[in-house]
């Protein structure tokens, strides 16, 4: 493939990765931003979203679009409630102590993963996309006849992949509006800035924490529902998103929402482009190297505020 079309294909693939990554990492970032806890089980909430999407779509058995829309509503709700429940039952009991939270969420990771293995099984299962048509993309050249468009071999995307990118943008915009323009967002930000003071002003901090933890998991689940028609639901699919989300959140700055989006686009696009032109392993190596560099030279992340 020539360089131009090749780069365009790589960019499009990278954009899909970035879109899903932004959603998943945003869930992790929101939880850390408000609650100051690190959720190691985040990738499993993502996986659970995909598995529930499969379950909903295959139980309904109707038109793929119906199953998909139902999954897009039901999976995040279920996963979010489960996470909120885990917060009330586990994290609140250990008072969000950082070390114990990490250990507890590692435990949660294994419980969710193995329960899925025991019930859903070890197979990868597909969910049918609501619509999926191949769109051939044109490229231009300056030949003898001047400027001309042509359709290079293999340069294409599917309508569903474009939809994933658009949907992620819409969801992130909605989240931004929620955080900055609504009372719920105000309450969350107040809790983030000073939870003791928020409590003194009558904000039910415990309930806010449970809701935020649920919201974070629901965002991961949404990302998974969007990706599952492209990839497939599998009980081990939570590992990579967890790693990449951590990379994104560290580079973007823990708890910084704009930083998370910027880092997700950066990592997603570079993953797409580097893995197309060089190798997927190199893309992972560079992402991990970037984390190390950020931790050394700018520990608070690109957009994070340094500790006062």
């Amino acid at each position: 493939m020539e360089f131009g079309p090749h780069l365009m294909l790589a960019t499009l693939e990278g954009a899909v990765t970035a879109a899903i990554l932004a959603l998943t990492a945003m869930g992790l970032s929101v939880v850390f931003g408000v609650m100051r806890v690190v959720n190691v089980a985040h990738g499993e909430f993502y996986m659970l979203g995909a598995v529930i999407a499969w379950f909903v779509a295959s139980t309904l058995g109707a038109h793929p679009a119906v199953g998909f829309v139902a999954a897009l509503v039901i999976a995040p709700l279920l996963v979010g409630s489960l996470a909120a429940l885990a917060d009330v039952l586990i994290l609140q009991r250990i008072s969000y102590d950082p070390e114990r939270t990490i250990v507890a969420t590692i435990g949660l990771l294994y419980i969710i993963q193995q329960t899925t293995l025991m019930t859903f099984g070890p197979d990868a299962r597909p969910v049918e996309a609501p619509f999926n048509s191949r769109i051939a993309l044109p490229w231009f050249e300056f030949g003898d006849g001047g400027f001309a468009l042509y359709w290079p071999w293999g340069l294409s995307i599917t309508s569903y992949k474009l939809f994933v990118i658009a949907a992620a943008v819409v969801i992130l915009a909605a989240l931004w509006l929620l955080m900055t323009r609504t009372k719920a967002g105000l309450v969350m930000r107040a809790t983030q800035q000073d939870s003791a003071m928020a409590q003194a002003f009558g904000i039910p901090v415990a309930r806010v924490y449970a809701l935020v933890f649920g919201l974070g998991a629901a965002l991961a689940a949404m990302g998974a529902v969007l990706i599952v028609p492209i990839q497939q639901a599998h009980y081990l699919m939570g590992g990579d998103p967890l790693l990449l989300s951590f990379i994104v959140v560290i580079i973007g700055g823990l708890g910084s929402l704009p930083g998370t989006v910027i880092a997700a686009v950066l990592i997603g696009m570079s993953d797409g482009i580097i893995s197309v032109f060089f190798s997927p392993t190199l893309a992972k190596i560079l992402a991990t190297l970037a984390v190390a560099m950020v931790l050394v030279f700018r520990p608070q992340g690109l957009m994070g505020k340094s500790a006062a």
Partner: protein
Amino acid sequence: MTRKRLLTPDYSRRSALKTLGLGAGALAATTALPRFVQAQSSAPIRIGFQVHRTGIGASYGRWYDRTTQAAVKRINDAGGINGRPVEIVAEDDGTDAKRGAEVVEKFATQLNCDIGFGTLFSHVVIGSAPRAGELKLPYFVVSEGHHVASGMLNRYTLQPGITDVKSQVQAMAPFVANNLGKKVTMIFPDFAFGHDHRDYFSKAIAEQGGEVVAMIAIPPTETSFTKYFPQIPRETEVVYHVMVGPAVLTFVKELGEFFGPSRPELFGFIDSLEAVDITSPGLEFLEGTYFWEGNPRYAQENQSEYDKAYREAVGVDANGASVSDAKDVSTYAHMFGCWETLNIIKAGMEAADYQGPDQRAALIEAVEAMTEMPEGMDHPQGPKVFNGKTHQVFGVQYISQVKDGKLVLAHTTSIDDTLYPDEVDYTTQSF
């Protein structure tokens, strides 16, 4: 795993009483019933079954398990081995090489297994076989890798029930070069099994006057594939694809989306679609393409009576799916290897009059002495020839074409097409 009631501890007493009570005449009259009476010991023969229950080989593991259970039931119904029932001791290896070696060790030292059996994924075989050799545990793999016949492993490791990649690709190359095209791009999983494809197919196609114009290695745990496909050169006439892992459906789907209406010829190893319904949405572009099959998934017009009975015993319908769930598609092209290997173990143990672990070496010598294996209920996939020196079996290979969403047999190779010169003589190694 449920133990058969047959194998409860009071078994030997009961069978002894029966023997005394009924006498030889009565015995002869009831040979249709399973009985294990003439053995010196009626304790079961314990076959350690290293199964990929989890990890990237899980869908193969599920069907290897079903096939193994069906084969053992048949063997036990016919009186077991040397008058002793066969018991399968299954242990998950997580499709992981390190865990595989531990499982083999457990078979030998804790679970009192007579032999180890059933491993598929080549990296697990390569990781486990040295430990089996050290512990002197006969290790019957069902893996397809060329690692047995290449001489990489040891005298305790045998592959008598399934052919190896080198022989398979050697038999495929003439078909690809003569019918599909000479400029081939190979896409394969980046581990031992895929490297066998890479090394031996590129040699075999060169001998046919073709060439491999690009080789694309993809990690078997990969979940998104479009990014690899731009490496396919424009001059490619045939894409040769073989993929494993949980994301094979995504792989094939994205391959179709990449090419759209202007695809080159495709030749795949059915591994790319094992346990996947070929009528899944997005796979329509496969119509007219060709696949290697170890054993045809769809019941063919000229289906043998053996294939029919084998299908029924394992619980597979005419479309290659489970009789209880049409969406649960089998790994039909590979799992016959478990059935045939167990029958070879039975034949080997009977030839060696195997009674216990002291005779493990005798069992291996008995299997090494085998040669012709005619098609039959013990070998439903087809006739085979075993090479005792290289510990590898050779058999016919099938090429199918997708027609109306089904795999229809287009060509069957001969065993001679698959033979190559020996690379090792394991019989010269000491036990």
